[in-house]
C-alpha cells in the first residue's frame, strides 16, 4: 500500500483546461454510430400524424374526422377541444405567457398550427389519415404585418395570458384589445436636448426578416406511461423546463415526469420550451398510450422561427465625433404565441444602442403578436437584429464625419469599468481588443484595389454586445468511482457546441484526471439535476461554475478521507495524478486505494453536489435601468473584405475575421469552431437566408427553396480569433461563445458593401437582386 513520492511522477501532465481535447463524441459521429434521441430504444409505440391549419387566422367551425377514423390502423383522432375538455386552462403553456395550446382549440392563429392529431399503428397511416381530416374555417382578418398589428384593430389573442413563471408580467393579465404583449423602455439622460446640441445625426428604418434554424436533426418526441408516471424522450435544449411544463399541464408531481434527451444534432434555439412535448405528453397521458411524433423537414419550418424585427433608430454625435445620443424603436414580430419573445424584446432592447458610451439614450422595444408561426429563441436571442441597426448607424455616422469607421468606433466603445446605457458596468468585455484583432487580421490599413474589372471591393467592420441570461440556475452532481473514473451528472445538453467535452475538462483539471476518465451523463430529469436551459451561451459560465465547484468539493472530500487514512492533516495533503500525497511524509495513496480503504469494497462511489445561481437587479419598469442587469457580457467583432460583382449584384467574401472575448478558452479548438459556426450562420442571414411569406404562408418552406450557405458560399478565408480577458467569476475565467460571432456579421458585411459601392442597405438579406437593383437606381 502506498508508496514513496520520489518514485512517482508528480507533474500534473493531465492539465485539461486550455487544451484542445478532442470532442468526446467525435468518433461515433464520424462513424455514424452515434445514437440521437430518435434512435433511443422506446416501447412499441403508436404514431402521431398532425393535421395543420391552412388558414392564418380563422375560427374552427367544424372538424370532420370521420373519414380519418375509417382508415384501417387509425386508433383515434384527438382535437384541441378534447384536451381542453379534460385539462381546461391548464392546457395552455408557454415560458412567458400561457397562451399556447398544443392543438388549436377555438381558432387557428397561423398556417401550420395543429388542428387535429391522428393516432395510428404506423407512421404512414398516421400521416395519411391526418390528410383526411376536414376543417371548416370561419375566416378572421389576419394580422400579418408587425406595424399593422400595433395600429390595427384585429387581435391575435382576445386577452393576454402571462404565465406564472415571471412575476413581472403579472400586471398584464387579462389585458385585451392589443397585439403588444410586452414593452421594454430604456431612458437615460435627455435625448432631445443632446440631439439638439449635436453636430450630426443619422437615422434609419431597419428590417431583419424571420429566419429558420434548420438544425440537421429533426424534432422527435416519444411519451409513454409507466404506472403513474410519464416517460418522455425528446429532442430538447430544456429538459428541466419541459418536466416542469408537463407536470403543470397534467397537474401531476415533478417526480411523475421523466424527461430524457440525447445530444442534439443542432439546436440553435429551436428545440426549446414548448415544442412537441405538450402535445405528445397530453395524448400519451390522457389515453394511456405509448406515442411517438416525428415531424418532417417541411413541418420544422412552421414550428418556430427567428423573430422578424423592425427597428427605427437614430444616433447623434457632437462636433468631435463622440456619440451623444441614441434612440431605437424596436418591434419584434413574435408570431402567434409569445414563447420567450417578451424576454427577447427586453434583453435585446437594452443593448439596442450598441456597445458605446452614450449618455442619452431612449429605447422602446416591443414584442408583438401576428398570425404567423411563433418566433422563439434563435442564436443571439434577438440581439443580431438590433446590432444590424446600431452597427449600420454608427458606420454611417463615422462616414458623416469622414472618419475611419474603426477609429470612430474606437473613440466611442465602452471599456472596462464604463457604464452602459442601461446602467450596468462593463467587465471582461474587450470590444476594442476584438475590433482591433479583426481589423488587423484583414489588413484594414493596407491599400485596397477598389475597382477590378466589373468588381468593386470594400471593407467593413462591426462590433456586438450581448448580456448573458440572468438570473439562472445550474446544478451538478459528481460521482467519483473507486477506479478513479468520474461520472458527471448535469442537465446541460450537448448540441454540437461540445459542452460534454469541456465539462469533462473542468472536472479533469480539478481532479487531475485524463480525457477518458470523466463521463458526462446525458440529461435525464430522474437523474441529472435542474438546469435552467442550454441556450444563450450560458453553459460554460453557469454549468461550468457548478461543475468546477462540484469537482472542488470532491477534491476536498477525497483529501479529507486520505488525510485520515494517512494520519496527517488535510492541509498537508495534495491531490495529484491519480491519488493524494502528504507533503510532509511524501506518503501517497492512489484514489483506488483511498476508496477501497474507506468503503472496504471495490466498485464504490463518492458523491458531491453543487449549485451555481446568478442574480440580478430587475430593471426599473420606467427607465430600464439596473446596476446589475446581467451576470456578464459578451463582446465580439467582425471585419470583412469583399467584392461586389456589378453585373450580377453578387457578393464575394475574400476574408472574414471574427473575434470574441471568451474570458478564457477552456478548449480553444471548440471555441474556434463556435466562432466559425456562428460566423457562417450569420453570413447566411446577411446574404440570403430568410423566410419569405405571402399572406401568412411561408412560400419557401422546403430545403429546395430555403437557402443556407453551402461550402461554396464560404469566404476565401475565415479567421476565428480568441480574445481572452478572464472573467473574475468565470470558471478559470471562462465565458460562453455560442452566440458571440453571429451578432456582428450581417452589419460588417453591409458596411463593407457600403464601402465598396457607396450604397447603404437597411433591409436584410443582401441578395444580389437587391444590390443590382439599387446600383441601377431601382432599389426598394
Amino acid at each position: 500500500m502506498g508508496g514513496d513520492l520520489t518514485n512517482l511522477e508528480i507533474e500534473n501532465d493531465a492539465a485539461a483546461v486550455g487544451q484542445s481535447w478532442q470532442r468526446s463524441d467525435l468518433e461515433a459521429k464520424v462513424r455514424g454510430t452515434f445514437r440521437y434521441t430518435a434512435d433511443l430504444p422506446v416501447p412499441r409505440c403508436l404514431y402521431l400524424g398532425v393535421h395543420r391549419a391552412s388558414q392564418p387566422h380563422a375560427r374552427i367551425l367544424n372538424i370532420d374526422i370521420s373519414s380519418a377514423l375509417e382508415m384501417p390502423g387509425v386508433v383515434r383522432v384527438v382535437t384541441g377541444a378534447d384536451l381542453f375538455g379534460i385539462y381546461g386552462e391548464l392546457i395552455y403553456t408557454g415560458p412567458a405567457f400561457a397562451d399556447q395550446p398544443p392543438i388549436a382549440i377555438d381558432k387557428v392563429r397561423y398556417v401550420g398550427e395543429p388542428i387535429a392529431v391522428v393516432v395510428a399503428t404506423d407512421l404512414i397511416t398516421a400521416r395519411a389519415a391526418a390528410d383526411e381530416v376536414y376543417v371548416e374555417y370561419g375566416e378572421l382578418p389576419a394580422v400579418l404585418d408587425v406595424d399593422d398589428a400595433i395600429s390595427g384593430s384585429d387581435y391575435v389573442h382576445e386577452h393576454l395570458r402571462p404565465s406564472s413563471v415571471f412575476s413581472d408580467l403579472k400586471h398584464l393579465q387579462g389585458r385585451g384589445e392589443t397585439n403588444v404583449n410586452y414593452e421594454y423602455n430604456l431612458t437615460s439622460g435627455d435625448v432631445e436636448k443632446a440631439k439638439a446640441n449635436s453636430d450630426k445625426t443619422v437615422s434609419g428604418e431597419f428590417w431583419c426578416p424571420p429566419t429558420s434554424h434548420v438544425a440537421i436533426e429533426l424534432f422527435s418526441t416519444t411519451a409513454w406511461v409507466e404506472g403513474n408516471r410519464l416517460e418522455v424522450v425528446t429532442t430538447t435544449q430544456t429538459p428541466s423546463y419541459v418536466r416542469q411544463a408537463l407536470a403543470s399541464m397534467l397537474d401531476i408531481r415533478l417526480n411523475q415526469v421523466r424527461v430524457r434527451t440525447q445530444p442534439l444534432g443542432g439546436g440553435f434555439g429551436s428545440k426549446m420550451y414548448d415544442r412537441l412535448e405538450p402535445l405528445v405528453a397530453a395524448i400519451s397521458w390522457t389515453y394511456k398510450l405509448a406515442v411517438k411524433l416525428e415531424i418532417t423537414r417541411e413541418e420544422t419550418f412552421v414550428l418556430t422561427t427567428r423573430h422578424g424585427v423592425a427597428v427605427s433608430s437614430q444616433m447623434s454625435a457632437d462636433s468631435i465625433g463622440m456619440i451623444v445620443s441614441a434612440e431605437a424603436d424596436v418591434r419584434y414580430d413574435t408570431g402567434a404565441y409569445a414563447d420567450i419573445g417578451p424576454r427577447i424584446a427586453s434583453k435585446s432592447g437594452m443593448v439596442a444602442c450598441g456597445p458605446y458610451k452614450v449618455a442619452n439614450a431612449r429605447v422602446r422595444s416591443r414584442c408583438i403578436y401576428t398570425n404567423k408561426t411563433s418566433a422563439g429563441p434563435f442564436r443571439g436571442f434577438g440581439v443580431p437584429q438590433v446590432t444590424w441597426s446600431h452597427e449600420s448607424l454608427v458606420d454611417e455616422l463615422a462616414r458623416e464625419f469622414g472618419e475611419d469607421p474603426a477609429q470612430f468606433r474606437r473613440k466611442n466603445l465602452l471599456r472596462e469599468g464604463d457604464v452602459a446605457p442601461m446602467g450596468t458596468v462593463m467587465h471582461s468585455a474587450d470590444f476594442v481588443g476584438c475590433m482591433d484583432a479583426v481589423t488587423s487580421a484583414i489588413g484594414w490599413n493596407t491599400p485596397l484595389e477598389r475597382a477590378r474589372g466589373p468588381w468593386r471591393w470594400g471593407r467593413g467592420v462591426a462590433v456586438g454586445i450581448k448580456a448573458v441570461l440572468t438570473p439562472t440556475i445550474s446544478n451538478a452532481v459528481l460521482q467519483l468511482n473507486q477506479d478513479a473514473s468520474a461520472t458527471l451528472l448535469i442537465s446541460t445538453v450537448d448540441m454540437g457546441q461540445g459542452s460534454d467535452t469541456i465539462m469533462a475538462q473542468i472536472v479533469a483539471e480539478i481532479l487531475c484526471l485524463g480525457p477518458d476518465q470523466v463521463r458526462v451523463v446525458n440529461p435525464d430529469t430522474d437523474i441529472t439535476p435542474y438546469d435552467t436551459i442550454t441556450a444563450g451561451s450560458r453553459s460554460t459560465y453557469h454549468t461550468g461554475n457548478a461543475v468546477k465547484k462540484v469537482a472542488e468539493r470532491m477534491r476536498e472530500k477525497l483529501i479529507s478521507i486520505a488525510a485520515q487514512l494517512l494520519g496527517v492533516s488535510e492541509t498537508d495533503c495534495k491531490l495529484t495524478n491519480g491519488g493524494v500525497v502528504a507533503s510532509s511524509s511524501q506518503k501517497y495513496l492512489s484514489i483506488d486505494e483511498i476508496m477501497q480503504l474507506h468503503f472496504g469494497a471495490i466498485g464504490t462511489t463518492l458523491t458531491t453536489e453543487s449549485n451555481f445561481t446568478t442574480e440580478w437587479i430587475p430593471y426599473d419598469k420606467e427607465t430600464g435601468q439596473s446596476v446589475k442587469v446581467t451576470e456578464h457580457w459578451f463582446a465580439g467583432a467582425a471585419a470583412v473584405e469583399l467584392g461586389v460583382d456589378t453585373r450580377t449584384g453578387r457578393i464575394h467574401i475574400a476574408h472574414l475575421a471574427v473575434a470574441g472575448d471568451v474570458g478564457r478558452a477552456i478548449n480553444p479548438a471548440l471555441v474556434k469552431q463556435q466562432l466559425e459556426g456562428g460566423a457562417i450562420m450569420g453570413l447566411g442571414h446577411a446574404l440570403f437566408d430568410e423566410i419569405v411569406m405571402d399572406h401568412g404562408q411561408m412560400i419557401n418552406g422546403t430545403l429546395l427553396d430555403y437557402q443556407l450557405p453551402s461550402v461554396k458560399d464560404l469566404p476565401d478565408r475565415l479567421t476565428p480569433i480568441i480574445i481572452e480577458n478572464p472573467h473574475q467569476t468565470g470558471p478559470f475565467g471562462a465565458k460562453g461563445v455560442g452566440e458571440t460571432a453571429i451578432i456582428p456579421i450581417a452589419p460588417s458585411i453591409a458596411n463593407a458593401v457600403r464601402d465598396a459601392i457607396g450604397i447603404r442597405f437597411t433591409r436584410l438579406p443582401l441578395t444580389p437582386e437587391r444590390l443590382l437593383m439599387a446600383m441601377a437606381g431601382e432599389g426598394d
Partner: protein
Amino acid sequence: MRPNVFRPQSLQEACSLLEEHEEALVYGGGTALQILLKQGILVGSSFIDISGIPGLAEISFTDDFLRVGPMVTLRRMERSEEIRELFSLASSAYAKVANPRVRNTATVGGNIAHGDYRLDPPVALLVLGASVELTSRNSIRKVPLEEFFVDFQVTDISAGEIVTAVEIPRSIHLAGSSFVKLSSLSANDWPSASAAVGLMENDNGVHTLRLALGALAATPVMATVDIRNLNLDQTLEASLSKAMELMDPIADVRGSVKYKLRLGRVAVEEAIRSAWKEVPNGR
C-alpha cells in the same frame, strides 16, 4: 397507400407494365421523384423501377453518335474522359448539377424526363443538337431535344413511353463552347439564369452560334445566330438580341422577371466571351 413498385428485368416488360398501369411513373435515380413524394405533392401509386434492366446504363460511341443510356448517372457523364474530350460542353454542364451526392444518383434519362426549366444538362444538350429516344411497347421514336420540351414541366413523352437513350451527334463540331450558370441566392442553388453557347464550325469556318438558355423561360430554349463575318462585339449584340426574344422568365423567390432578364444577359455574354476564347485566332 403504399405504392406498388415494379422491377422489370427487360425493356419489353417495362413497356408492358407501363401500358397496363397508365398512372405508373418510371423511376430512374429518384432524386426528383422522392422530393415531390416527400412533400406530399406527388401522390404516386405505382412506380416502375428500371434500374434492373440490363443495358440501360451504357455509354457507347457509334460513327454518328454518342449514345447514353437512361440509367447512366450524371456523375459518369461528368467524369467520362471520352465525353470530356468530344463534348466538353456536356461534361461541364453535368458537373454543375446540384452536388456529388445527387450526381451519383440522378440519371441522364430522369433528368431529361423531369422537363424542368432550370436543369443544367438540357441547356448544353440543346446546343449539342441532342435527341431523345422514346420506346413504347410497339414503337421506338427519336425526338430532337428542341421539340422535346413542350411547356412548363411538360415534355413530349407520351403515355406508355420510356426514355431509352439520349444521343449526341458527332456531326456538329463546336470550335468553342461554354456553359455558364448563375445563381441568385446560395452559390449551390438552382440557377436563376444559365446559358450554353457553342460556336459551330464547318468546312468554311465558324458561321453559326448555337445558344440555349435555362431558367429563363417555361422550358429550356434554344436558338441559332448567324455570325458570319461578325466580330466578337457584333456577335454579342446579335446573340443578346436573340436571347432577349427567348427569355420569358418566371418570377419567384429567386428573383423578379426584371432581375432574371438582367442575369440572363450576363450569362449569355459570359458564355460567348468564354467560348470565343477557345477559337484559335478568333476563327
